[in-house]
């Protein structure tokens, strides 16, 4: 399998280390958050494990050491692309804002 690293290009999957689904952003800095808060529960524990299009964290650990979010279809195993983790949640937010504005 090949994985596209936005920094290095197409690379073999052996160069990457998977971490898990990227389903919720880390809750914003607050300082008095409680463990039972939904945002923390979602970030830490909720994994929908859905059949279909998913987003997964991969670390290009034997390459540029960037964290990326790989877009993979769990039904077909097709990798449709990837995004730098540093841009992923920002993009999500922009998309949501755009939808809300429509």
């Amino acid at each position, binding site marked *: *399998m*090949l994985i596209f690293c936005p920094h290095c290009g197409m690379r*073999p999957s052996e160069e990457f*280390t998977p*971490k898990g689904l*990227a389903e919720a*952003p*880390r*809750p914003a*800095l*607050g*300082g008095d*958050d*409680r*463990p039972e*808060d939904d945002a*923390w529960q979602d*970030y*830490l524990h909720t994994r929908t494990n859905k059949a279909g299009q998913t987003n997964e*964290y991969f*670390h290009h*650990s034997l390459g540029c*050491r*960037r*964290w990326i979010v790989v877009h993979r279809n769990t039904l*077909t*195993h*097709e*990798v449709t692309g990837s995004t*730098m*983790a*540093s*841009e*992923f*949640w*920002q993009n999500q937010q922009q998309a949501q804002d755009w939808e809300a504005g429509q």
Partner: protein
Amino acid sequence: MSARLPQPNRLDHGGIINRDRPVTFTFDRRVYQGFEGDSLASALLANGVKLFGRSFKYHRPRGILGAGPEEPNALVEVDRGPADRDPNHRATMLEIYEGLETFSQNHIGPLNMDLMEVNDLFSRFLPAGFYYKTFFFGGLQAWYRLYEPIIRRAAGLGRPPLAADPHHYDKIYTHADTLVVGGGIAGLTTALSLAKAGQSVVVCEERDRMGGSALWQGETFNGETGAAYIAHMCREIEAAGGRLLPRTTVFGVYDAGTFGAVERCHDHLTKADRAPHTARMKYHRIQAKAVVYATGAIERSVGFNGNDRPGVMLASAGHTFLGKYGVRVGERVSLFTTHDGGYGTAAAFSAAGAEVTVLDARTDAADVSIDGVRVIKGVYAGQAHGRMGVRRVDYDGASSGSLDADALLVAGGWNPAVHLTSHTTDRRQSKPVYDAELLAFVPPELVDQEAAAGSVTGAMSTADCLATAQAAGKKLGGKKIELPTVDQALPVSKPMEMWAVPGAGDAAFLDMQNDATVKDVKLAAQEGFKSVEHMKRYTTLGMATDQGKTANVTGLALLAAATGRDIAQVGTTTFRPPYTPIPIGVLAGHHRQRDYAPFRYSPVHAWAEDNGATFMEAGLWMRPAYYTAPGDKDWLDSAVRETRATRGSLGITDVSTLGKIDIQGPDAAEFLNRLYTNGWKTLPVGKARYGLMLREDGLVFDDGTTSRLGENHYYMTTTTAHAAAVMTHMEFMHQSAWPDLAVAFASVTDQWGALALAGPNARACLAKLFPEVDVSNDGLPFMGVIETQWQGYTARLFRISFSGELAYEVAVPADIFDAFWQAALQAGAEWKITPYGLEALNIMRIEKGHVTGAELDGRVSMDDVGLGKMVSSKKDFVGRAMSEREAFSDPDRAKMVGLVAAKPGDKIIGGGIVFDSAEGPFDYTTMLGYVTSVAQYSPLKDRAIALAFIKNAADWHGKTLYVVSHVHGKSIMEVRAESPHFYDPNNEKVMA
């Protein structure tokens, strides 16, 4: 070259072998000769050998069934010495070379008098499911002690080698626009079409050369022989940039255009011909945008009694031995066919001087007249006679009779080799589709990036195969190429449906390798194993090294008939990689032993080796555990001596293995603030601070010190064990959660060597090493940092202590660390500087109550290790929210405590369980906690001490407890609990 030996079954002409190069080899210690280009099978058949091995279960004598990778019977061992012995080579795929030594397998005593053949006499007592039913009695013990050893011995598939594989193997990434699997005429035609269109093409061919059956079948192409036409095509493909890989098996298809292939580079060569330092095999990981399956078809047999006799073989195999190798497998040949294809083989044998009788199962077969060939229509082979080789064939049907024969060829129809098309569910369904017209499974509907060419599609004539190749080329964007005119074409037709003949029973074999018979399949159906997957597991049909390449389709057709279903309804079992067996070694490649997990060495490793160090592994690092000095009785003696010397005067230890991370940027302090539990914004330049990191779930992750070297410059140390994990964690948090922080960091573990000077004379020694630097308690106070120079190189002095003594760590560039170490030893000589290892360090840090990986095991909170105060409540940090989980404030939660043995000489066993009574019961209902670290002797306490985690830890201080180890015979050890800070609890020494 030695004298030529006779080869009785070798014709004096024909074949694509090199008759100028005789090759001498042995089989079961007998010497034979063949020619260059022979397989072991063809060379032995040329010498009149019919018996190649014994069957798996009944030990029936077996010969050759096929001529290629499908061969189930003729498995042999290649012996190049005890460490270099490969079992289970298919004689049909093994190329002979001068001096090759081979042995038959699976018999006790000589091959022609196997003592295990007695199993065959009892064959009616060993039906499908026999083992499941019989060895149920007596339970598991009986299985392990009694049944399994006997079965293992009886059901041999060769002997494994006895030592590590002496060969080496390479892994290669191979890239292509299109991979063509199969270098027969169809694959090559497609490859040429694609290569001419400018695509990069790789053709993998399992056999020793490109061309497949076109090389020798006798058909001509534009008037040229097959061999000449193939040679032209190969040159053209290579001229257009294509790569041809013979002896390369594509064994698996994986997601997104990844293919596994093994190229056999050495197995056909004598030792002298193998280039030194080259790999025996290469594992190609092929990445291709498109693929052409040109994998051909495998002929199938028909179930009749005695169809496993030596001398009964597939018609295509007989034809291959004749055409490719010039070996005639019989003089009086019976040929049992269900389709026109058998007549091509009959004609070839007749032309080679054999007396041929065709038994055609079809009553309505068209009349064919071939010189010297007798045809009997509407009959089938009912029984083959001849234990060590066919002698007579009984036929039955429209007429019946008996024929003298020394070979029986069977043409039961063709199974397209659809295996690879079924390996992946990537983008499409994977199961092959049954074509009731063709009586065969064909590939499923392929996606845009795939095509099939040749007989794998179900095409039968060469012309049809070429047409599919042209279509495949077109589908994948190839250039149109003119197809050749095929003359002297072999006859083909669809087969008549006949999977087993009437009366076929327990001597009618389907899977020769597992001795699964027609009767076994019927029995399985009768006993309710109606799913093809259950039938496979119950009868073992389709298992083992050949994976039923000649057996599967016939088996499931018979299962369909026995259960009253269509073949399409029954379906096939799942095809999985590898297509044919491959050595594990080739998948491992160079990733074995120390190439898999290399050692990491400190810059002073050589010095430590020369000075009596015994090393221990810490992750990949080799660290000195203790240094043996004259008079030391054992490791503990050494460690205690080192401890006393350090506490009494001066010790030195290598701390180069600690993780070191250089952090820079205007937001560096903010970044540290979010990584560590404690605050970092107030840390001044020139100071270090101890920090604790949590995981996001609130549990302790790692600890270490970080120093501020400049306004925006920090230097972090981590534990040796977690260095890589901390780096990865920092990258994740920075990139996924806080990309806006302006900070950059890099691992500098290998760039800096570091040592610790510890003990009351540490300051004096440091002052000698750095005479210009003020290292007094005011100049370099506890947790102070100075960046200076040593002989022109940067040196960083940190006043930090892990041992609990007055101590300094000094880091210098790794290149000069050895020189610096020597200088430190020289400077410390007047105080009898003593190098100490991990064991002494362990004693000292346990005495001091410092935690390491043994305590920070991923289950403890800050509070549990007594560091609950190290939280800045004013900020967010990793693990902050979860550190307030209710469970962490449970009063019953185990916390760290110190344990001291009741009297000198008593041991405390690491990992022991702590109880408050010596009476028991010693189980989880009464346990208080567990021991994490033990110092078997503490000079401070004159006995063993330990760190442990127990419930209500503080309440037990001063009281007696008991440590029980269930894995050491439940010995009960009396201990006293106290604060874990045994040594210098008020830090007077480290601050001195």
